[in-house]
Structures are given as structure tokens and as C-alpha cells.
């Protein structure tokens, strides 16, 4: 294929022929002061809140504060080239970003400009960054599962399409890892993914992009970057522009997954802007409307009704806590907005339990509606059992003599914990998850030593895939555990048990 330049020039020629001169009328103001990503502008008497304005140097801004005598503008771009006295014009437009398939596989800034050096994004489809979320009548309850590929999450706190599930935890507890695994697991599901990086180190973001690329996930993913060195306005709008890009799919009947990594940094950027604009500070110096900042963002994740195509946006907001303090301002706000949270704990993480999810206080308010029937049956009481096990384990550490029933429950608990451990970038198919959790909860692992559980799991899954694929595919078709299927799976596990040499030398169960 070769590019025809004469075709381009014919388009341009047509443009020149049709060109009509007319007077350009615009509303202007002048910069009074500028700095730290914001500008005070005198004039612009008819500008509206949230309207896009353009500085004479070509940089865009957003009318953020409308005061009696001046307008506070947040600058989206390089504010160092803006001078006092410079002309500012209102555009009568709202901020918008390019959307559509051209963005897949790209790394862009919050305005949709490419950052990956792969050339311009050729599209004229745009969407407003700030839109009002769909109303009650346009929605339907969450009913379809969104498989994250993580056993602990899919079994205990399932995420449905259109749900907002918060990932919360201290620094270095594997929050991003869960989100990345969820993105990687969408390879076959057709869900488009958007990773919004807010206030992170550029090296960390580059690492994430590289991991996604290695896993082949960049084919259906867009990364929206506003790094720690970007001015606060960019960090503030990044989640909204990521959502706008995802909405393009939702409103066309598709499905999208948005990861906001992380919203506590966005809140900090918003606090910075608000304080510079002299808005009164409230708790923890955040402005009074920081709740609205997050609620209007997360309300845009929804499952549309069938009349509107049934599309969805699922969001996984991430919040970083300090020293496990979930009752701080921003964490409580976002917990109350979302439909559940995955709580990650450092002590579990350091004990080698990865993902370090605390089953006791992690919840999903959508619950079973977001699970396939088979998973619902095998994982029904798993969360409560694990929480009970944690209590029992603490009690058992006192060193008292335990009765056999309690000891058996403890042993089962150790094996379940072991079973729910999962490596990074290794999402598991939901059918495989059902098989191993079935084995664990029905007690088939009780004879396997605790340190062999992961090895058993791996070999069992290979066995099922290679030798019993008919049982596996039957489960994949029905997505339900019928009595007949339960018998078949039980038979498979027993057959595998005889082959697995690890079981031949039963050891006394290890007690911690």
C-alpha cells in the first residue's frame, strides 16, 4: 500500500474553495496572575463554570471558579508559557477527549494526546470529559460476572459488570497487582480496559505498561497517564477522561473496565487546586466537595438497560491507606460510594499470603448475582468459613489442647488459605477456579500436606485439562454443578489422588 498525496490535496483544495470569510466573535479576558497550574483572569464576563477557555499561547484551561470580579482557571498544559496580561478567550465548548478503537493499545495523557511515540491518534470522535451519569430508568441491576481471574476475588468478593469494587490497602500490599491481573484476564472476554494512572512515578507506570504488553493485554487496553510530575489539573481530570473513553464502549453496547490507580492521589491534586483557588478547606484540608468529586466519577460506572444496549462500565478504584487507617476521610468516602471493597493487609502480605486479601472485611454488595452458578455453589460459605478460621487460628496460637473437630477445621482452613494463594500475572479461568475450590471445600485436600497444596493444584488442573477434558468442557458449557457433574468431578479428583505421589506419604498436618 502506498499513500496518495494527491487525494489529500484534493480534500484541502475543496476546503479552500468552500472557505467563506466571516467575522470571528469571541469573549475575552486578561490574565491577572498565573502560577502553580492556575490563573486568575479578569473579564470573561459571560463564561460558564466548566467551560473551556483558550490562552493566547494556545494552552487550554477550564473555568473552575467564578468569582465576583474574576475567573479562576485551571490550566491544562504548560503554564510556564502564560504571561500576565495575556488574552484568554472563551470557546463555548466543554473539555472533550478523543475516543474509539484508535485509542486501544495507546498510552495517552488526560487530554488524549499520545505519549508513546506511535504517531498521532487519527479520529474525530470525541466525548465530553464531564458528563452526568445515567439515571435510574436507564440502568439495570448488575447480573453478568466480570471475571478477574483471581481465585480469592472471584470466589469471595465477586465483581459484576457495572459494579464498582474498591481495592484498598496500605502501600506495597499488591493493590495494583490485582487490577493488572483483572485487566490481563479480559483477553478473551472482549471487555475493553482503561488504566488511569494518577500521581504515580513514571517508572512505575512504564513498568505496568511493559507488563501489560508482555501479557498481550495492550491490544485492548488504553493507559491514561498523569504522573506525579504533572501539574495538579492534569491529575485531577485524568479519571474523568478515562471514564469518557470507556463510556464510548458502554453507550455502544460494549463492556469496559476502568482502573483508577489511585483516587487518593486525585483527591490530593483536587485539594491542591482548591486551596490555590482559595476555596475554604474542611476535614484534612480537603475542600467540602471532595465527596462529589469521587461520587460523580464513580456514578458513571453502570450497567445500562437492554433498551440502551446493555453496555457496562466496571470500575476498580484504588485507594491507598496510611497505616491501615480506613476511617480517614477519603477512604470512608470512597468505601461509601462503591459497591464493596477488597481490603489488602500488610501482615497477610508479609506472611506470604498473596493476594493479601482480608476475607473478613472484604465484601461485594452485589454478591452472588455476579457469579456463575457453579461458583456460587462451591464458594457459598467460603468467606465466612475463612473469617471464622482466622479467629480460630488466633485462638489456637495460645497453645491449648484442641479437640479433633476444631483441629480438623483448622487443618481445612490452612489448606484453603494455601489454595487461595495465587501468583502475579497468572489469572485463572473461572472453570479451573471452580474445580480447585470444589476440591478444597469438599475436603479432598485434607490428606494433602499444606506445603504441597499449590503443587497439587497445578498438577490437578493439568490432569483435568489433558485427561478429563470432557468433564471440564461439560462444566464450562453448563456453568452449573448438577448432581451428575458433582459425581463426575469427585471421581476425577479421586482418580487423580491415586496418581499424585505427594499423597502417598501422609504427614501429620502442620500446625503453625
Amino acid at each position, binding site marked *: *500500500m*502506498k*499513500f*496518495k498525496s494527491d*487525494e*489529500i490535496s484534493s*480534500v*484541502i483544495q*475543496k*476546503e*479552500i474553495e468552500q*472557505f467563506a*470569510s466571516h*467575522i*470571528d*466573535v*469571541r*469573549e*475575552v*479576558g*486578561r*490574565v*491577572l*496572575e498565573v502560577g502553580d497550574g492556575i490563573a486568575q483572569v*479578569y*473579564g*470573561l*464576563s*459571560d463564561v460558564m463554570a466548566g467551560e473551556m477557555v483558550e490562552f493566547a499561547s494556545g494552552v487550554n484551561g477550564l473555568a473552575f471558579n467564578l*468569582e*465576583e*470580579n*474574576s475567573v479562576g482557571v485551571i490550566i491544562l498544559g504548560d503554564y510556564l508559557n502564560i504571561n*500576565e*496580561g495575556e488574552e484568554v*478567550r472563551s470557546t463555548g465548548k466543554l473539555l472533550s477527549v478523543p475516543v474509539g478503537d484508535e485509542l486501544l493499545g495507546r498510552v495517552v495523557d488526560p487530554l488524549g494526546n499520545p505519549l508513546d511515540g506511535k504517531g498521532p491518534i*487519527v*479520529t*474525530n470522535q470525541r466525548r465530553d470529559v464531564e458528563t452526568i451519569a445515567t439515571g435510574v430508568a436507564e440502568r439495570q441491576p448488575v447480573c453478568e460476572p466480570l471475571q478477574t481471574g483471581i481465585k480469592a476475588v472471584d470466589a469471595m468478593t465477586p465483581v459484576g459488570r457495572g459494579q464498582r469494587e474498591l481495592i484498598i490497602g496500605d502501600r506495597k500490599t499488591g493493590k495494583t497487582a490485582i487490577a493488572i491481573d483483572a485487566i490481563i484476564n479480559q483477553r478473551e472476554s472482549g471487555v475493553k480496559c482503561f488504566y488511569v494512572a494518577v500521581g504515580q512515578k513514571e517508572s512505575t507506570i512504564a513498568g505496568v505498561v511493559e507488563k501489560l504488553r508482555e501479557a498481550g493485554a495492550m491490544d485492548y487496553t488504553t493507559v491514561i497517564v498523569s504522573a506525579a510530575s504533572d501539574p495538579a489539573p492534569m491529575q485531577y481530570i485524568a479519571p474523568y477522561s478515562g471514564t469518557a473513553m470507556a463510556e464510548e464502549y458502554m453507550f455502544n453496547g460494549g463492556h469496559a473496565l476502568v482502573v483508577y490507580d489511585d483516587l487518593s492521589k486525585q483527591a490530593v491534586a483536587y485539594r491542591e487546586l482548591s486551596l490555590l483557588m482559595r476555596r475554604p478547606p474542611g476535614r484534612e484540608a480537603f475542600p467540602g466537595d471532595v465527596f462529589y468529586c469521587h461520587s460523580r466519577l464513580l456514578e458513571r460506572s453502570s450497567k445500562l438497560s437492554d433498551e440502551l444496549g446493555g453496555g457496562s462500565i466496571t470500575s476498580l478504584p484504588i485507594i491507598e491507606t496510611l497505616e491501615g487507617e480506613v476511617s480517614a476521610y477519603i477512604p470512608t468516602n470512597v468505601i461509601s460510594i462503591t459497591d464493596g471493597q477488597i481490603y489488602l493487609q500488610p501482615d497477610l502480605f508479609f506472611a506470604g499470603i498473596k493476594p493479601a486479601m482480608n476475607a473478613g472485611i472484604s465484601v461485594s454488595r452485589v454478591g452472588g448475582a455476579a457469579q456463575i452458578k457453579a461458583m456460587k455453589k462451591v464458594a457459598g460459605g467460603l468467606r465466612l468459613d475463612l473469617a471464622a478460621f482466622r479467629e480460630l487460628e488466633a485462638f489456637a496460637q495460645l497453645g491449648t489442647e484442641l479437640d479433633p473437630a476444631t483441629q480438623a477445621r483448622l487443618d481445612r482452613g490452612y489448606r484453603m488459605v494455601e489454595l487461595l494463594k495465587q501468583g502475579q500475572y497468572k489469572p485463572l479461568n473461572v472453570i479451573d477456579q471452580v474445580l480447585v475450590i470444589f476440591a478444597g471445600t469438599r475436603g479432598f485436600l485434607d490428606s494433602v500436606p499444606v506445603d504441597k497444596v499449590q503443587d497439587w493444584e497445578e498438577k490437578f488442573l493439568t490432569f483435568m485439562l489433558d485427561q478429563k477434558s470432557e468433564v471440564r468442557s461439560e462444566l464450562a458449557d453448563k456453568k452449573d454443578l448438577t448432581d451428575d457433574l458433582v459425581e463426575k468431578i469427585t471421581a476425577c479428583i479421586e482418580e487423580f489422588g491415586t496418581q499424585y505421589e505427594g499423597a502417598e506419604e501422609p504427614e501429620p498436618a502442620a500446625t503453625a
Partner: protein
Amino acid sequence: MMNTSATKDTSRETVFDVDAEKLAGVYAQAALDAAGDKEDEVLDELQTIVSEVLDTHPDMEEVFGSALVSIDEKVEMLDRLFGSRVSTTTLSFLKVLTKHDRLGVLRQVVRVAGQLWERRCNRVPVQLETAIELDDALHAEVVDSLRGTLGVEPVVTTTINPDLIAGFVVRVGDKVYDASTRASLERSRQSMIMHAVEAIQSSPEQFLERSDAE
């Protein structure tokens, strides 16, 4: 910047304190209303005070704005200075300003009063920017057409800006009417880009030729 502008007014329109400006507006309106029929006379006196007293004796302005000089002393000073030289309305207005401890914003008050007076006389300041210098006939024609379209008496200040290439730019208050060639060229550049992108998107095949057909 803000602090100095409260006492020293400059001609640059971006250097002022928006709050002082607001305050000055209130006093300016009151002064003109109080003058009744003699608005122009009072305004003239006030403008003379600024040009003759404040501009020639900068120390005076500091005294007016200073909190160290008591209000009573300032009133007496005003009596001695202007007692027999200005109309009673002007003097009373200066005393009111003093009693409210606002003599420091006198300069802004006078400037805003001037703008207000222009507006009341149906005169609007208009900035006209052209690419080349206009001859008198053309200038008069432009002023005439401005008068016709705006429905007010334009007070035109003209600047020459060769960057416009041709045509002119008129600024009235916050509104800019841009009929320059620079703006037209920019607009056509934008629409060319937009239509080219649209054409590439809607039918990309017309821009490509198969290499085997060559």
C-alpha cells in the same frame, strides 16, 4: 503586585486589585449620583485633584492612605487644601471617603467614575487594531460603521499590528470581533485538518493505492 496597586494606579489594565476596583465602583457611582446635574463638573474637579495633587506630590498620596494620620487631621487638611478651591459636593465627597477611611483608593475611584461617566454619556471605549495605518477617511468610515452597529458613541483607540496581515480586530468590553486575515487563515487551517481526518476515517481506501497495481 496587589498591594502596590492599591495605592499606585497604573495604566496597565492587568495590574489592579479586583477588590479595590469593586469598592471604587461603589464610591464612584455615589459621587456621580450626588453631583446631580453637575456630574461633569465634579468629575472634572476630581480628575484635576488626581493629576495636580496626587501625580505631582506622591507624598500626599501616602498621607491620604496612611493610617498614622488620624481621620480628623485628614479632614482638616482637606479643608485647608481644597476648602475654597472646589465645589462643596466634591469636598463633601472627599470628606465622606476620609470618614470611611477610603481616601487611599481615591485614584481608583476617580478612574472608575470616569468610565462610569463615559457609559452614562453613551460612550464606549473601543480598541481598534489594524494591520496597516488607516487614513482619516477610512478611519472615519470605520468609526461610523461602529457607531451604527453598536448603537453607542465609540471612543476609539487605534493600534497597529502587522501580525494581523490584513483586516482589523475590534474590542468592545469583553467582546472581540476579529475580522483579520490571521484569524481566517487559522480557522481554515483547523477546518482543513478536521476534514482531512474525517475523510481518512470515513474512506481510508481512497488515500491508498495497492502496490501491486503500480
